[in-house]
């Protein structure tokens, strides 16, 4: 019982991080048909932002790191979109290859800037303890990660459904031509989506520093799992991503506990293959006419 509860928390905190990463992926694919392999490096950028800030700001720098990482990762994403990716819209396979190259370059840049060995980001003192629930201690760091994600996802939901910019985003996702012919600047909407998606990955990167050390390949470790969340959740779907992330995070945590990390991987993959046999389109289908 205690074990089940402890793994539930572990699983949910993995789910939370995956969700934040998957959101950017699912929206850039849903809207622009871009498969961004460099998305993992936005996570890394966020993590190193937290590392950089703890020097000047000290232990309590984490709260500052969250918004700064959002902007830093978002800005890197925006530059990438302007320089490269926008020339490849609607060509998923080309974006996959090009962004994979970019991903390797960015990892090398990180190695040159911060060195190859992993670095540590010290958690603020108020995240040291834990909360006792039913006889087990839930780490405050894991609770904090979940809180970050709940706040972020709620903010994205409000943005999409309540704000004028979000309305435009949904219009472009659904029918790009009609959106342009309604006076919506699709380029602006694309840039904004890219900025927000990359920024969320940066926020996830800050969260990940609470779970372990930071290295140049930090992002690529999470990217595949995030892609799986996207595939299972259905492309371009907020609700689907949430459910898929929770499912995959829990599955991984439980199997990992009762067996081994690499076995957990295999089980997760098999479960996804079985799922996609039954529902190739994912949990939800996005009806879209953008970029046929």
């Amino acid at each position, binding site marked *: 019982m205690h074990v089940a509860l402890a793994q539930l928390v572990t699983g949910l905190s993995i789910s939370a991080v995956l969700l934040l990463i998957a959101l950017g992926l699912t929206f850039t694919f849903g809207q622009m048909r871009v498969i961004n392999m460099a998305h993992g490096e936005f996570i890394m950028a966020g993590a190193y932002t937290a590392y950089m800030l703890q020097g000047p700001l000290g232990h309590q720098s984490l709260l500052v790191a969250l918004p700064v990482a959002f902007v830093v990762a978002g800005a890197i994403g925006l530059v990438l979109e302007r320089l490269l990716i926008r020339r490849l819209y609607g060509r998923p396979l080309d974006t996959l290859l090009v962004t994979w190259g970019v991903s390797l370059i960015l990892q090398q840049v990180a190695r040159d800037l911060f060195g190859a060995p992993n670095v540590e980001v010290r958690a603020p003192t108020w995240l040291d303890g834990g909360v006792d629930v039913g006889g087990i201690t839930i780490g405050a760091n894991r609770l904090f990660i979940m809180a970050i994600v709940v706040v972020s996802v709620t903010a994205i939901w409000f943005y999409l459904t309540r704000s004028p910019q979000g*309305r*435009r985003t949904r*219009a472009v996702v659904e029918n790009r031509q*009609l959106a*342009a*012919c309604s*006076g919506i*600047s699709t380029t602006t909407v694309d840039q904004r989506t890219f900025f927000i998606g990359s920024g969320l990955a940066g926020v996830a990167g800050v969260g990940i520093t609470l779970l372990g050390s930071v290295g140049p390949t930090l992002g690529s470790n999470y990217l595949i799992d995030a892609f799986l969340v996207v595939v299972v959740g259905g492309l371009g779907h907020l609700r689907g991503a949430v459910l898929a992330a929770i499912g995959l995070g829990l599955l991984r945590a439980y199997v990992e506990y009762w067996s081994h990390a690499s076995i957990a991987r295999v089980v997760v993959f098999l479960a996804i293959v079985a799922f996609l046999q039954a529902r190739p389109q994912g949990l939800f289908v996005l009806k879209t006419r953008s970029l046929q």
Partner: protein
Amino acid sequence: MLTVSGIDVAYGRSRVLFDVSLEIPDRALVCVMGRNGVGKTTLLHALMGLLPCGSGRVTFDGSDITGWRPERRVKAGIGYVPQGHEVFGQLTVWENLQVAWEVSTAAKASAIDDALDLFPRLRPLLKRRAGFLSGGQQQQLSIARALVGQPRLLLLDEPTEGIQPSIILEIEAAIVGLHRDGLSILLVEQYLDFAIRLADQYVILDAGEVARAGPASELGEPAVRQLLSL
């Protein structure tokens, strides 16, 4: 108001329009006609900037808009109602109108209300998802969406295609009203009777070229009927 001079339009290598020229005078309603597949929709796509013109020019209100992006043409005052009652199906009826109104710099505060006055059927449906509307209601919404930007020129692509007769009458009344209030209109239409009732002038496309153009009074002539029959 809108002058099209000698445009060629192609999909990749297959050319669809050849040296098409036409003129929409201020406050006029010009009807573009022609058989299925002749290139009427292609012409409107080129006028909206969804397809590039291989050669020729499009001028709107004196400025050369040939290379402009679609949204810039909308902001300059061109409204577009695509063929096949297109709406944002996941957005509510209100959001469909609001999203277009928010990006238009020229539109006044009452623009959405004015568009709804033209199609009162939409009022009780404002909170409904546009994807759940009937085809006729979607067509009305599509026209209303084009109108909230308060265009000076409206391009309509077969607004009555596949719509039930009672709603056709409402749409016709709306078009007549807009025309009377001074909006310039380019109407693509297959039905001769509908065109005869509404148009000031007509243009008939045949095999990707302008086969004949003139005042609407000629539309009853046998030579014109010949061009439109299969």
